[in-house]
C-alpha cells in the first residue's frame, strides 16, 4: 500500500494546553473522540495515509504538548516540518491571545520559510464561545495562514482541515519534493562562442 504513496509529509500540531490538539488528531486518525485522553507528555506521534486529488500522501503527525514545561523539547520537531497546525480553543480567549507567542516560536525554529501554516479554532460545539469566527479569520489573514473552525467532538471540519493543509503543501513547489530542481540561477547563458565557429549558436562577427 505504501507503493503508490507520493510522499511522506511531516506535520506538527501546536497550541496551548487543553485546546484539543490530541483530540483533533485522534478524530482525524481514528475518527473517535475520547474524553478520557490524558494530557500529552512531550510529543506524541501518529501516522495516516490520505489521498488528495488522487495523490496519496503519508502524514507523519507530531502532536506536541502545549504545557509550558514541555515546550523546550518541541522546537526540534519544527525541523523539516512541511505543515503546521496551530490550534486554539474558541471558548477560551487566552488560548487565542497566546497565538502570537506560538507564531514567534514557529518563526524561530522552522527551518524552511515556505512551510504551510493552518489555524484551527477548536471546540465550536461548545456554547460558551469567547472568540468570534471573524477574529480567527482576521488573524489567519494577517499571518497568511489557512483557517478553519472545527470540533473534535462532533467531527466538524476536522477531515477538511487536514486535507486542505495537505493539498496546499502539495501545491507549494519545492516543499514536498526532497530536492527542488531547476531553480538555479542562470548566469552564463549563451556565452560567446568565440573562435569556435560551430554555428548552431549565436555569435558576433569577430
Amino acid at each position, binding site marked *: 500500500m505504501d507503493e503508490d504513496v507520493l510522499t511522506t509529509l511531516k506535520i506538527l500540531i501546536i497550541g*496551548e*494546553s*487543553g485546546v484539543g490538539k490530541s483530540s483533533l488528531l485522534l478524530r482525524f*486518525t481514528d475518527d473517535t473522540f475520547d*474524553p*478520557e*485522553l*490524558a*494530557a*500529552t*507528555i*512531550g*510529543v*506524541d*506521534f*501518529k*501516522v495516516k495515509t490520505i489521498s488528495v486529488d488522487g495523490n496519496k500522501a503519508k502524514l*507523519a503527525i*507530531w502532536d506536541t504538548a502545549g*504545557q*509550558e*514545561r*514541555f515546550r*523546550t*523539547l518541541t*522546537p*526540534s*520537531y519544527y*525541523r523539516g516540518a512541511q505543515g503546521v497546525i496551530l490550534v486554539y480553543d474558541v471558548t*477560551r480567549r487566552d488560548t487565542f491571545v497566546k497565538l502570537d507567542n506560538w507564531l514567534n516560536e514557529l518563526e524561530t*525554529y522552522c*527551518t*524552511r520559510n515556505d512551510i504551510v501554516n493552518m489555524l484551527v479554532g477548536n471546540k465550536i460545539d461548545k456554547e460558551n464561545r469567547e472568540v468570534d469566527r471573524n477574529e480567527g479569520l482576521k488573524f489567519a489573514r494577517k499571518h497568511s495562514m489557512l483557517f478553519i473552525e472545527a470540533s473534535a467532538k462532533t467531527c466538524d471540519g476536522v477531515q477538511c482541515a487536514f486535507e486542505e493543509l495537505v493539498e496546499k503543501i502539495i501545491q507549494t513547489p*519545492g516543499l514536498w519534493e*526532497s*530536492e*527542488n530542481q531547476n*531553480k*538555479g*540561477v542562470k*548566469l*552564463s547563458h*549563451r*556565452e*560567446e562562442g*568565440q573562435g*569556435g*565557429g*560551430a*554555428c*548552431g*549558436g*549565436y*555569435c*558576433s*562577427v*569577430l
Partner: protein
Amino acid sequence: MAADNEPESEVFEITDFTTASEWERFISKVEEVLNDWKLIGNSLGKPLEKGIFTSGTWEEKSDEISFADFKFSVTHHYLVQESTDKEGKELLEDVIPQSMQDLLCMNNDFPPRAHCLVRWYGLREFVVIAPAAHSDAVLSESKCNLLLSSVSIALGNTGCQVPLFVQIHHKWRRMYVGECQGPGVRTDFEMVHLRKVPNQYTHLSGLLDIFKSKIGCPLTPLPPVSIAIRFTYVLQDWQQYFWPQQPPDIDALVGGEVGGLEFGKLPFGACEDPISELHLATTWPHLTEGIIVDNDVYSDLDPIQAPHWSVRVRKAENPQCLLGDFVTEFFKICRRKESTDEILGRSAFEEEGKETADITHALSKLTEPASVPIHKLSVSNMVHTAKKKIRKHRGVEESPLNNDVLNTILLFLFPDAVSEKSLDGTASTDNNNPPSESEDYNLYNQFKSAPSDSLTYKLALCLCMINFYHGGLKGVAHLWQEFVLEMRFRWENNFLIPGLASGPPDLRCCLLHQKLQMLNCCIERKKARDEGKKTSASDVTNIYPGDAGKAGDQLVPDNLKETDKEKGEVGKSWDSWSDSEEEFFECLSDTEELKGNGQESGKKGGPKEMASLRPEGRLYQHGKLTLLHNGEPLYIPVTQEPAPMTEDLLEEQSEVLAKLGTSAEGAHLRARMQSACLLSDMESFKAANPGCSLEDFVRWYSPRDYIEEEVIDEKGNVVLKGELSARMKIPSNMWVEAWETAKPIPARRQRRLFDDTREAEKVLHYLAIQKPADLARHLLPCVIHAAVLKVKEEESLENISSVKKIIKQIISHSSKVLHFPNPEDKKLEEIIHQITNVEALIARARSLKAKFGTEKCEQEEEKEDLERFVSCLLEQPEVLVTGAGRGHAGRIIHKLFVNAQRAAAMTPPEEELKRMGSPEERRQNSVSDFPPPAGREFILRTTVPRPAPYSKALPQRMYSVLTKEDFRLAAPQVCPGRQLLPGAGIEANLQEKPTHSRHVEAAGRSPARIQLGCNGNNATKNP
C-alpha cells in the same frame, strides 16, 4: 508521399510505403516537422523595429530526424513577436514571403549578437537542418545536392514559406545553403567562403561590381544601390593600465602586526585583466553609391568620421579570481578521503597514552580529581603543549603549519587566551556582535552556517586560508587537530569556549556549530559543579553570601541563575549530601536549610513523612496560591534544566519515539520515555512544598487542568470550588502515576537529566573523528556565507545594480540548497560558480573604470555619463558611443587606440598627448590612429525587376564580411520561381539557376554552392 499528413489523399491513394526509399522517408519527415511546427503558408509580421534583433527574444525549437542511420537535427529559430493575428495564416496571394521582404530592412544591420544567418540575411525566422552530432559533417557534393533537393521538395510540397537551410561541410565553416519559396518567387541562399581574399573584394568598389553583375539587372541605368558599412577595430594592448593584482601577502598577515581580524578577511579580485579586448565598430549605416570612394588606392572611410560608433568589450574567459579559487579549493577538500591521522601520520591523537577515541576510557578519568586549572592561559602556552604532544610522534619539521602561523590563527580563534580576565568565562558572553537585527548578520539563518562573529565561522575562514596559502590539506588537518586538542583542553580545565552564543545549541546553525555549543553547555555545567564543590569544600565555615551569589552568576548560564535568588550561603559540606556527585544536577550550596532550619544542618535528610519534611529547593513563592491542604504558601521549586540537544540527537530521539508506533502501548511508552522531566519537576515540587497534592502541582504546572467554578454552598455563599480537569482525573493516567512515584527530592539531589560528562565526551569524540573532508562539508556553508558577504561588500563599493540582483538570486538559491541535509555536489559547485562569476563581473567593472578613467573625470556630468557608459559595456553586448568619435567616451577610446598604435610603432610616448590636435595633423602623421580594421562588413541592397524590365521588382541583397582569416559572401538570389503548375519540376528551376556564381568561382575557390542533381527531379514523380 507525405500522404500520411494529408487526410484528403487517403481517399484514393493506397499508402504503400513498403517500397519508399530512405530518401523519400527523409523528405516526408522534413515535411512532417514543418507541418508540426505550423510553418506552412505566409504570415506577414510587423515590419522589424530598430534593434529588435538584439532587444527581442530569440527562441528555437528542435527535432531530430534521420536519413537512413544518419541523424540530423532540425531547428526552427525565430524572433518572438507578439502574436499578431495568427489566424490570418492563410496563404496570401501574390505577397512575397516575409524573409524576402526582410532582406531590405535596414533596421537591424550588424546586430551585435545573432545567429550568423540572421547577420547575413537579416532573417527573423528560419529552419536549419544540420548533422545532429557535432563532429558529423555533410561533405560530399552529391550528398549536399541530395539534401538541398530534399529541402526544395519539402518546401514545395508543404507550401512552407520559411527559409529552410542545410548546414554542409564542417560545422566550423558555417556553410549553409538554403531555399525559400513563395508564390511565384523563390530565393536561393548561397554563399561563398574563402580563406584568402581576392584583392578586388577588399573594398567597396570591387564588391559593388560583383553585386551588380550578380543581380543581372536588365535596366540601365541601374537603380541606386544602398550601402551599409561597418569596420571593426580591435584594441588588445591597454598600454598604461597593467592589471596584475597582487595576491595578498599572507606572510605580512601572520607576521604578528596585523590583528586576527585581518586574518579573517577573504581575498578578492581577478589575477589577470578580466577585460581582454575592446572592439570598436564604426558604422556608416546608410550610404548611396557614389557618395564615397573606397577602392584599391584611396578610401573615404575614416573611422573618426563614421557617424556611428559602438563598442563591445571582450571578457577574458574564466579569469582566475581569488575569491572563487579560494572557495573552490576549499570545496575540493570535500572529496578527499583521507583521515586526519592518515594525513598527519598515525596516532597523532594518542597523546600521553590517552585514547581520546575511547569514550569509556575517557569516562573513567572523571573519577579522578579534576585537573588543576591553569589560571593564565596563553595561546603560545597552549600551542606549545600541543606541539610537544605531536612532536612526540613525528618530527616538528613535518608539521605543515609553522608556529607563527599557528599562533596567529589560534589567537584569532581564541582571543580570550590572551586577555587576563578571560578565564571567568565572560569571553563567551561578550556582546560585540554586529547589530544582530541586520539582514547580513542573520544570513546564517538562511545558509545554515554560523553567525559571522562566531568561532565556527572564523574557523571556517582559517581552514580555508590555510588550505589556500599554507600547505593545503596537511595544514587543514594540522589546524583541526590543534583545534580539537584545544577543545579537550577547555573541557578538562573548565574554560568556556569563546565566540559561541550561550544557551542550548542553535538549530539554525550548522551541526558543527551546534556541537561546539553543546560542548560549551557541558563545560558550563561542569564548571558550575566544580566551582560549587570547591566553595563548599574549601570553606566550610562561611563565605560572604554576596560572593557566592556572584560566583553563581558567572558560572551559570542565564537559565540557571535562579540559584542567585536563593541568596544563599554555604551549607553543609559537600560530602554531607552526596557520595557520587556526578549523579546530581548541581552542587551549589544549599540555602534553604540555613535560612529555615539552620539548626538541622549537617543532618542527612532521610525520607520522612511529607508534611514533616523541611522544604528544600525553593525558587520563590508563587504569587497568591496556597496549598490546598494546609494553606501554606505555594513555592515554585528550583528545577533541572532540560538537556540541550543538537539536531542529530534530536533526530535520533524523534526516530526512537516514532519507532514506538501508533498503538496505545506505543503511545504510553513514548509518554513514559518523555516523563523524566515531569517526574523531576514533581519531585522538586514536592521537596519545596511539603504536604502538597497533585492539585497543587497542577495549579502551578498546568493551570488549565484545574477547573474552578463558583458554587453556592449550603449557607448560600458563593464560593470557588476547584477540581482537576476530567483528563487529569482519569485513574492511573501518566500524571497520577508519576505523582505517586515522585519522592520529595530537590533538583540538586536528583539524578542529572543531562549527563554533561557523557555528552562532552561524545562531542569530543565526534570532533576527533572528523576527516578534513567531513570538516569541509560542515563548514562549507560558512565559507559560502563569507564569500557572499565579501562579494556584497565589494559590490557596494562599485554599486552595480545588475550585480546586486544576481547576489540576491545567489542568496535565495543558496539558502534553498544549503537547507537540505546533504546538498549535491553539483549544486554546491553551481553556487560557487555563481559567486566566481559575480567576482569576475565586479573585477571587470573595476578594470573598465580604470581604463576609461572614470575617477579622473572632473566634470560631474561627464563622469556620470562615463560611468553609465561603462556599466552598459558590462551589461549589454554592444554599446552605442554617443557622439561617435567626437563624444567624451569616443575621445577616450580614440586615445586608447592612439596609445596602442604609438606603442606598437615605438614612438616616444611623451609627445602623443600634444599631438592630439586637429584631425589634419593626425592624418599627416605616419602612424595612423587605428590599426587596420579586423573586420569589414558591407551590406549592399537594391530592388530590381527580373528577368525582364517589366518583371516584378524583387529585393536583392549581398552581405560580405572580410576578416583576417576569411572572406564570406552571402548573396541570396531572389528570382521569379516556378509557377506552381502541375508537372513543373525542379528541373525547370535548375535551368534558371543563375550563373552569377561565375565571379566567385573565377576567384579560384572550390565551390560550396550546390548544383542540384537530376535525382531531385525523379523525386517529384514519386508514385
